[in-house]
C-alpha cells in the first residue's frame, strides 16, 4: 500500500492504436487518493479507450501505468519514444481487483440475482466465505439503496437500478479506484439522476474515481479536475470552473457550445 501523498494511479505517455487508428497519442494523468476526475470530449476522442486502458480491458500500445506505486507489466521496448510494456494476464487479473469498473451497458449477470451478482467476485475472486460475502454485498447494496431488490433478477430492475447494482458490485471488491465509463449514456433521462447521485455520494465519501461522462453538470459539481480530450490527447485540463466555464482553447469552446445551444 502507498502513503497518502503518492498517487493511486499514474499514467505516462499512454498510446493506443487499433490497427492504423491512433486513438490515444500520449496521455499523462495522475490521480491522487480521493480525487474525482472527469473526462469529457466528443465521441471518438479516446476517453473510453483511456479508461479501458487503465484496467487493461485494452492493452496499451505504449506508456507506463503505475497503480498503487507499482508499475504494471515489464518494459520491452519503445514506441514513439514511449516505453512499451508486456503484460501477463495473471498480473492484470490482480491489478483489476484494485480497479473497479462500471460500464455503459451495466453488464450485470442476468442469470444471477442482484445479491449473487454482488457476491460473485467476493466468493470467486476474493475467496471470501458465504457469510462474509453476504455481509459485504448487503452493505454495498444498502449503500446504493437497493437492498430490498437483493433477491430479484436484473431483468426486473429499471436501467437506473441495474446500474446502481453494477456500482455496488464493483464497490464490493473494495477497489482503490473506480472507473465509470459513460454510465448514464444508455439510461432514460429520468433515471440518470439517481445514478449520478450514487456516484456523487461515493465521491463525497472519499472514493477515488475517474469518470467518463457527457453530463457536464455532473462534472461541474463533482469533479475535482476536468480533462477535455480531443484527438487522443488531453487538450485542456483544470478545475471544473476553468475548463467548463472559462475554457482557454477554441476546441474546448466549440465542444461546450454544442451543449449550451439548447439551454433554457
Amino acid at each position, binding site marked *: 500500500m502507498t502513503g497518502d501523498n503518492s498517487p493511486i494511479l499514474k499514467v505516462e505517455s499512454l498510446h493506443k492504436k487499433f490497427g492504423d487508428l491512433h486513438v490515444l497519442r500520449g496521455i499523462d494523468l495522475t490521480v491522487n487518493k480521493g480525487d474525482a476526475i472527469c473526462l469529457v470530449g466528443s465521441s471518438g476522442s479516446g476517453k473510453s479507450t483511456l479508461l479501458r486502458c487503465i*484496467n487493461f*480491458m485494452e492493452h496499451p500500445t505504449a506508456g507506463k501505468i503505475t497503480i498503487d506505486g507499482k508499475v504494471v507489466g515489464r518494459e520491452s521496448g519503445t514506441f514513439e519514444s514511449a516505453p512499451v510494456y508486456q503484460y501477463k*494476464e495473471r498480473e492484470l*487479473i*490482480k491489478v*483489476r*481487483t484494485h*480497479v*473497479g*469498473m462500471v*460500464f455503459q*451497458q*451495466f*453488464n*450485470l*449477470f*442476468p*442469470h444471477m440475482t442482484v445479491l449473487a451478482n454482488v457476491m*460473485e*467476485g467476493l466468493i*470467486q*475472486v476474493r475467496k471470501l466465505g458465504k457469510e462474509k460475502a453476504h455481509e459485504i454485498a448487503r452493505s454495498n447494496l444498502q449503500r446504493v439503496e437497493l437492498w430490498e431488490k437483493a433477491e430479484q*433478477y436484473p*431483468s426486473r430492475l429499471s436501467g437506473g437500478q441495474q446500474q446502481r447494482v*453494477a456500482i455496488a*458490485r*464493483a464497490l464490493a*471488491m473494495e477497489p482503490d479506484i473506480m472507473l465509470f465509463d459513460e454510465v448514464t449514456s444508455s439510461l432514460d433521462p429520468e433515471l440518470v439522476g439517481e445514478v449520478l447521485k450514487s456516484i456523487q455520494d461515493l465521491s463525497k465519501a472519499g472514493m477515488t474515481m475517474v469518470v467518463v461522462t457527457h453530463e457536464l453538470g455532473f462534472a461541474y459539481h463533482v469533479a475535482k479536475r476536468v480533462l477535455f480530450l480531443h484527438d487522443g490527447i488531453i487538450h485542456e485540463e483544470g478545475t471544473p470552473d476553468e475548463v467548463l466555464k472559462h475554457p482557454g482553447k477554441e476546441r474546448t469552446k466549440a465542444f461546450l457550445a454544442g451543449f449550451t445551444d439548447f439551454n433554457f
Partner: protein
Amino acid sequence: MIEFEWNFGILVPYWGNFLRGAIVTIELSVIVIFASLLGGIVVGMARYSSNKWLNLPATVFVEIFRNTPVFVQIVWFFYAFPVLIGVQMEGFVAAILGVGLNMTAYTSEIYRAGIQSIHKGQWEAAKAVGMPYMRTMRRIILPQAIRRMIPAFANRIIEGAKATALASAIAVGELLHEGELLAQALYRPLEIYTVIAVLFFVLIYPLALWSYWLERRLRTDEKVTL
C-alpha cells in the same frame, strides 16, 4: 397391386429379439449422446479460443466429421481404424466412435455458437471483478449460453438416436440389425420393418415431446434479457 395379408401374430414369439435390439439401440444412443455433450464442450471451447494450437486441431476435427457421411465414419472405424492400431474392434465400439465423434463435431458447433452469442460485456464485467478466463466461462458464460443451446441440443439428440441405426451395417445387434436377421429367417420383411419403424418412433418421439416442452419452458422462463 399384390394382395397382401398382414400377419403380425407371427412375430409374437420373437418379442425378445426386438427387446434385445431396442436395449442395444438405447445403450448406443445414451453413450453417444452423453459423450458428445461432454466432448462437445471441450472441442467447442477450443474452437472459440484464439489460441491457434487449440483452435486449429479443433477446426480440423469438426470439418472432417461434419463433411463426411456418418455412415462412412462408422465403416471406417470398423474396417480401417483397426488396421492402423493393430487391434480388432468390436462393432459396438466402432459405432460409438463413428456416431459419437460425428455428434461431437455438431454439438461442439452448438457450444461455440452459444458461447459466441453471449454479449462481450459479460466477459468484461467478469474480467473487471478479476475473474480469470476459465472461471468466467464456467460461472458466467456457459450457464447463460447453455440455456440458449437447449433447443439445438434437443434436435441433435434426436438425430444421434436415429443415427445409431447405421450401426446395423457393421452387424451391431441394435434394433434394425435384429430386424434384418429376423427378416432373413422369417421372410416377413413388411411386418418386421414396420415393427422396427414403430419401435424407433416410440423410442424417439418422447425426445421430440421433451424438446417441445423445453422450448416452451425456456420461452416463458427467459431471464436472459438485457
